[in-house]
């Protein structure tokens, strides 16, 4: 309890000498002094059950962060592995070919005002140090609710795609090799970048169609191909938030269908839709919804947050259940009720995946993804609004 500089401490320590001397010979050897300046590091490849929690800090947007948690650990001390700051509703991408994270973020020279600077900040996975940054020109980075495909790695993670909205729409192409901007590709009327084909991406368009773009090796535009409208964006909208399994993106629709789109070739290919809701439960009007409400596991199962009594206006609400689907057989294999209302989900990689749910209290519920059993709830880690969670890759 005494807070002293060493000098003054030594004065009164002298007074204690008699007492301590009395006991000294009875004791074990004392604790060695701790070194100065120790800083922890993490493994360059994260364990399967580690999470990257994207806390947008909606009430304090300049103070967003990405928190690295171990979902297997029992106590906060063991759960919390580190953090990275992430300013103004940032986006995150993780490389699997380099030990790097990429955070697309925005700064103003005076906090909320002044000169704007958009950057991709490059973090080392092991040290969580900033390795460098790529300046994004034009102040174009989309400012929106977090989306998994607002920042996309393609071409063995050599190219990073940043979605822009000003409201003109484009993709800024960043080379992770040279850490520089190499191109900007216009995607008029379309949004986001789902990895597609050899070295490309697909965007979803306002007419209910798609736009598939292929890039050259240097990241410049090679070709673009439009896929004609296949749904009515007013009356029968498809969510722009798919889970991608073996190159097939499963896009839920507002009314409870799923629309698979094959992204394995250079141009997206529409596949037949099927229903998420078994016929015998149709009457309860179950619908998908939430923030990041779709996920997949490495065995190829699709996870969707569902809510009953759905209708116009309920599409972003979240839900009471997570349903799990076999996409091959187009059947539901599990129906897991959630402890609290669920807003976003993620499933970790590997053979024993965990289902992670951001609940309405902005805590993370960790479930066994095969049994639906609640294992633990992660909270109290300094989070405000963790809208989006990514499993460590």
């Amino acid at each position: 309890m005494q807070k002293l500089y060493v000098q003054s401490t030594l004065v009164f320590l002298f007074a204690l000498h008699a007492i301590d001397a009395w006991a000294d010979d009875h004791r074990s050897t004392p604790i060695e002094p701790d070194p100065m300046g120790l800083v922890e590091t993490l493994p360059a490849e994260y364990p399967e059950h580690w999470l990257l929690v994207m806390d947008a800090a909606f009430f304090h947007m300049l103070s967003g962060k990405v928190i690295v948690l171990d979902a297997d650990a029992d106590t906060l001390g063991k759960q919390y592995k580190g953090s990275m700051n992430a300013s103004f509703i940032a986006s995150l991408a993780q490389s699997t070919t380099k030990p790097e994270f990429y955070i697309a973020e925005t700064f103003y020279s005076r906090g909320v005002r002044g000169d704007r600077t958009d950057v991709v900040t490059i973090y080392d996975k092991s040290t969580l140090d900033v390795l460098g940054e790529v300046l994004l020109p034009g102040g174009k980075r989309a400012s929106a609710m977090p989306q998994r495909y607002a920042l996309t790695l393609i071409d063995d993670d050599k190219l990073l795609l940043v979605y822009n909205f000003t409201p003109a729409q484009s993709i800024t192409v960043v080379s992770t090799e040279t850490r520089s901007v190499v191109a900007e590709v216009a995607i008029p009327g379309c949004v986001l970048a789902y990895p597609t084909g050899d070295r490309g991406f697909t965007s979803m368009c306002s007419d209910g169609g798609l736009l598939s773009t292929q890039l050259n090796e240097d990241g410049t535009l090679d070709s673009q191909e439009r896929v004609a409208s296949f749904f009515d964006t007013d009356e029968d909208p498809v969510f722009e938030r798919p889970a991608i399994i073996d190159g097939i993106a499963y896009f839920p629709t507002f009314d409870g269908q799923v629309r698979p789109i094959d992204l394995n070739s250079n141009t997206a290919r529409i596949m037949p839709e099927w229903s998420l809701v078994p016929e015998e439960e149709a009457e309860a009007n179950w619908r998908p919804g939430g923030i990041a409400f779709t996920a997949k596991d490495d065995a190829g199962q699709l996870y969707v947050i569902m809510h009953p009594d759905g209708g116009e206006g309920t599409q972003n609400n979240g839900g009471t259940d997570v349903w799990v689907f076999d996409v091959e057989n187009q059947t539901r294999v599990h129906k897991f009720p959630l402890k609290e209302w669920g807003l976003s989900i993620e499933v970790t990689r590997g053979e024993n995946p965990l289902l992670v749910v951001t609940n309405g209290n902005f805590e993370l519920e960790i479930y066994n993804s095969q049994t639906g059993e609640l294992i633990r709830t992660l909270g109290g880690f300094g989070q405000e609004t963790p809208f989006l969670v990514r499993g460590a890759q």
Partner: protein
Amino acid sequence: MSWFDKFTEKSLRRVAQSSSRRGFLRGIGAVLVGSAASAPLLPVARADNHSASAPKEEGDPTQCEYWRYCATDGFLCTCCGGTYNSCPPGTEMSPITWIGTCQNPTDGRNYIISYNDCCGKGPCGACLCIRDEGDRPIYRSDKTNDYNWCLGTQSAVYHCSVARVVGLAVE
């Protein structure tokens, strides 16, 4: 603004203390005065007093249920030093906006409402109001509230949202 439509119990408590835990989000939708697009509106009962001094609109603009907010999403400027049609001191109104159509229960008319964001100070944090009817994914930029609409302003930092009448839906 408007990208906090996605809601959550914790934050919603600030708006609606009384909602039941599950399904509270649906409850918010239920206060809406019906959708002009999905079903034709019947004229509502009119006030007895038709004089020019009769109130043209009623309700509390600091409440999410207020008629003009039928398509709003974000912090209500009425709780942040502004009003339903003006920004708080020191903020800038975004010229780019999304549009809703809301029925004024006082005169039964449908009005076109422009939901301009006020920008340049950090999030107000008061009176979060979320209504998602008519919202579409971000590929419909004309109909989505997932974007921060502080575009074309000196700073893109979102503070709160107003609800301006820009015209009568039918003359």
